[in-house]
């Protein structure tokens, strides 16, 4: 069905894939496992036409396959089911399914409503979704949206479907339904690639398994050849030191006798339907991780802490002072910083220059009353100081619009903005700080985060990549369904235990009123 032949890919001199070769056989499901950063996403990006490989070839159904873009991949019968779905929530199920190929009344540019409804209903039956096709997608729960996405893949006559962590935002019954559907699709002769961190599921669903490690195939074969233990032993063994900077143990744990002061304290923060009874304390110099699945309430908690979203009950104390009633602006003045999940929408003014972006939070400190005219010399010195400190690429001129920079450098600009604002190291909330960033820039960012902590900042880091949290945190809280389920302290980090807590069902975030 599909063959990878010696695929290699590097980003900024960091090798992400090295001579990866394996095949997906027709009518079979291939389980692809590996730790985050092992190269799965890059390989799938190459398959989907988002990134060209540096070398190597692919063959699809015996034909050479070198997609120039996602459209070509779709035309050749490859469909992706991502964790983040590509549906239009405001449109109905049927409109989403046939957006590019509406059945028409004869040759007229008029949609044939009845044909549309019938065909949509037939597709929905195939995927086992019992909803009227006219329902707006935004009214469906996550699991059913995913079924719509699969129905869309079927409508485009996909012959190879890639499921990339499809169960992360699903409840257990929803996941069970998905697995049933996958089994039916397999019986109909579709080929699938199943990517997941839940190894038991991979073993249950796959016919063949490929393990990636550090961009190379560490093991491949039929399912019978693997067990959970063997998969784990094949997956691990990466050299963490390559990516995650070492911290001196002395700085990591000052010992119980000399506990550093608490910077941020959260006492019973509750917002119905979002988070419930969150309690923790973040100390000076500490990097505290928030682990959990998508939708566990981590980003929502971060937004509440920063004052962007409301919080019904509970107290938030910054250096001992309650701040839960203050605006984000006041919280920034008190030393809170927030690197948002969405760099483009909330982190940067993309059209504005590098230096304008870096200066944005700190303008008032560089202005003279009464008109607030800026002291440009002082501001420029401060900006270039922090710009050097974050090791922004020298090709990024200060007046260049931020949108011309790479993702990694853009993120460094956001970080520089907050580092400049927090003259007195405050509390840094980082939501997915390395999302979409190549390996080289990641290392720099980790270094900068740890340096900030060493200077006395408290860091609260949210990441979907467990590996990242294990690599940089002193302590990890695990969230699930809006609650903190577990707490682990370095060096007693236990991947299995974190995953168990993250997957823990437990009661819903809050009883519905």
């Amino acid at each position, binding site marked *: 069905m599909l063959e990878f032949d010696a695929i290699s890919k590097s980003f900024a001199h960091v090798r992400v894939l090295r001579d990866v070769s394996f095949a997906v056989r027709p009518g079979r499901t291939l389980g692809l496992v590996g730790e985050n950063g092992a190269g799965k996403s890059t390989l799938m990006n190459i398959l989907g036409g988002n990134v060209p490989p540096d070398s190597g070839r692919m063959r699809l159904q015996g034909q050479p396959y070198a997609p120039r873009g996602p459209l070509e991949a779709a035309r050749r019968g490859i469909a992706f089911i991502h964790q983040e779905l590509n549906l239009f929530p405001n449109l109905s199920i049927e409109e989403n399914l046939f957006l590019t190929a509406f059945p028409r009344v004869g040759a007229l540019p008029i949609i044939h409503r009845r044909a549309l409804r019938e065909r949509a209903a037939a597709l929905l039956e195939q995927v086992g979704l019992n909803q009227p096709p006219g329902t707006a997608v935004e009214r469906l729960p996550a699991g059913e949206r995913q079924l719509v996405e699969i129905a869309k893949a079927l409508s485009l006559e996909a012959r190879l479907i890639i499921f990339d962590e499809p169960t992360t935002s699903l409840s257990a019954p929803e996941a069970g339904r998905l697995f049933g559907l996958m089994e039916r699709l397999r019986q109909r002769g579709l080929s699938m690639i199943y990517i997941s961190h839940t190894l038991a599921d991979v073993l249950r669903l796959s016919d063949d398994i490929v393990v990636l490690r550090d961009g190379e195939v560490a093991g491949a074969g039929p399912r019978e050849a693997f067990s959970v233990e063997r998969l784990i032993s094949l997956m691990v063994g990466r050299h963490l030191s390559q990516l995650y900077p070492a911290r001196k143990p002395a700085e990591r744990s000052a010992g119980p006798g000399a506990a550093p002061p608490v910077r941020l304290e959260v006492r019973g923060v509750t917002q119905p339907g979002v988070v419930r009874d969150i309690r923790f304390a973040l100390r000076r110099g500490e990097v505290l991780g928030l682990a959990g699945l998508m939708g566990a309430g981590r980003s929502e908690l971060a937004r509440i802490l920063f004052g962007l979203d409301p919080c019904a009950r509970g107290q938030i104390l910054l250096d001992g002072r309650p701040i839960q009633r203050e605006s984000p*602006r006041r919280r920034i003045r008190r030393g809170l910083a927030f690197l948002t999940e969405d760099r483009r929408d*909330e982190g*940067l*003014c993309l*059209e*504005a220059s590098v230096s304008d972006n870096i200066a944005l939070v700190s303008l008032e400190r560089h202005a003279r009353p009464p008109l607030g*005219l800026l002291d440009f010399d002082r501001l420029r010195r401060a900006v270039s100081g922090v710009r050097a400190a974050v090791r922004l690429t020298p090709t990024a001129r200060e007046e260049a619009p931020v*949108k011309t*920079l*790479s993702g990694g450098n853009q993120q460094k600009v956001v970080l520089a903005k907050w580092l400049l604002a927090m003259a007195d190291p405050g509390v840094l909330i980082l939501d997915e700080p390395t999302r979409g960033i190549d390996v080289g820039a990641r290392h720099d960012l980790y270094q900068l985060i740890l340096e900030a902590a060493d200077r006395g900042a408290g860091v609260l880091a949210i990441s979907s990549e467990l590996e990242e949290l294990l690599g940089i945190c002193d302590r990890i809280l695990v969230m699930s369904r809006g609650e903190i389920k577990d707490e682990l302290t370095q060096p007693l980090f236990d991947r299995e235990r974190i995953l168990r807590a993250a997957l823990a069902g437990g009661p819903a975030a809050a009883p519905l009123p």
Partner: protein
Amino acid sequence: MTAAATTHPQPEAASLPVRLLRSEHLVLLLSALYFLALAPFTPGFASVGNLGNLLSTLLPLFVAAMGQTVVLIVGGIDLSATSIIALCSITGAAVASGDQGWLAGSPLAVPAALAAMLAVGGLVGLFNGLAITRFRMPPFIVTLTTMMFFSGLAIWLTRSRNIGQLPAAFNALGGKTWLTLLLCLPLAAGAHFMLSRSVWGRWLYATGHNPRAALVSGVPVAGVVVSAYVVAGLLAAVAAVLYTGQAESGSPVLAQRLLLDIVGATVIGGASLFGGRGRILWTLCGVVFLKLIDNSLNLLDLSHFTIMMVKGGVILLAAMLDALRRRLG
């Protein structure tokens, strides 16, 4: 995933047309070329009298366009500018008019009229700003409806009559070009400095570029937006002072046809309808260019409608240029 999305643009070896398109001085260059090209064929175009006349009609438009610039930078639009001018015009006249004004003949008449006009302009701007930020309504609809309401109000209040007999000192502000110039220069310089060198200016641009990012970065976004509309209202009031002085009477339909000129000149100058871009000097260039076209076509004896067609075309080109510039980055 995003590795593909963040493409690195090539270090540019931009061609001359592209460089010209991006240039800040494009409009100034076009104005000069236009003037030089038409001067030989247009009777009286380059005469001192005509240029003085050009200057006197240009200045009030420039003041109103400055306000529009501020609003466009913050990512909004102010369609109510002309109605503010009309309302301020009759307010000032109602206070200072020699035969029917409330303070007729009083030495305080002129300062009181000016204060009343500024207050009215500022209040309408405040209303616009609050409606946009508090109720999250689109600026286009808010200012379109305030435009309709206040134009109607101005006509209803005056029963569609002009208010004449204004004090000479008041008329002089708009009527004597040197005095108008003396008023406008510091105003423009002040606006330029506030936009380019103050925290408030930076906040305007940041809010125009990306209000969500600005909010997360501690910019008081709602306050910044409201302030932009208040400033636009105040500047419209100043424009009303100049126009009223030129007309020597308060009129409820003053500036009724100027909306296209105000928004158009600002966009021609290079302020972006998408927010985040705009400068006082650019707007000055836009005003000059638009007025040159207006004036020359008038001198060539073209009809009002022809002139409108030409101006419409030029403004459309400017809007296209704005979109093109965005794409070129």
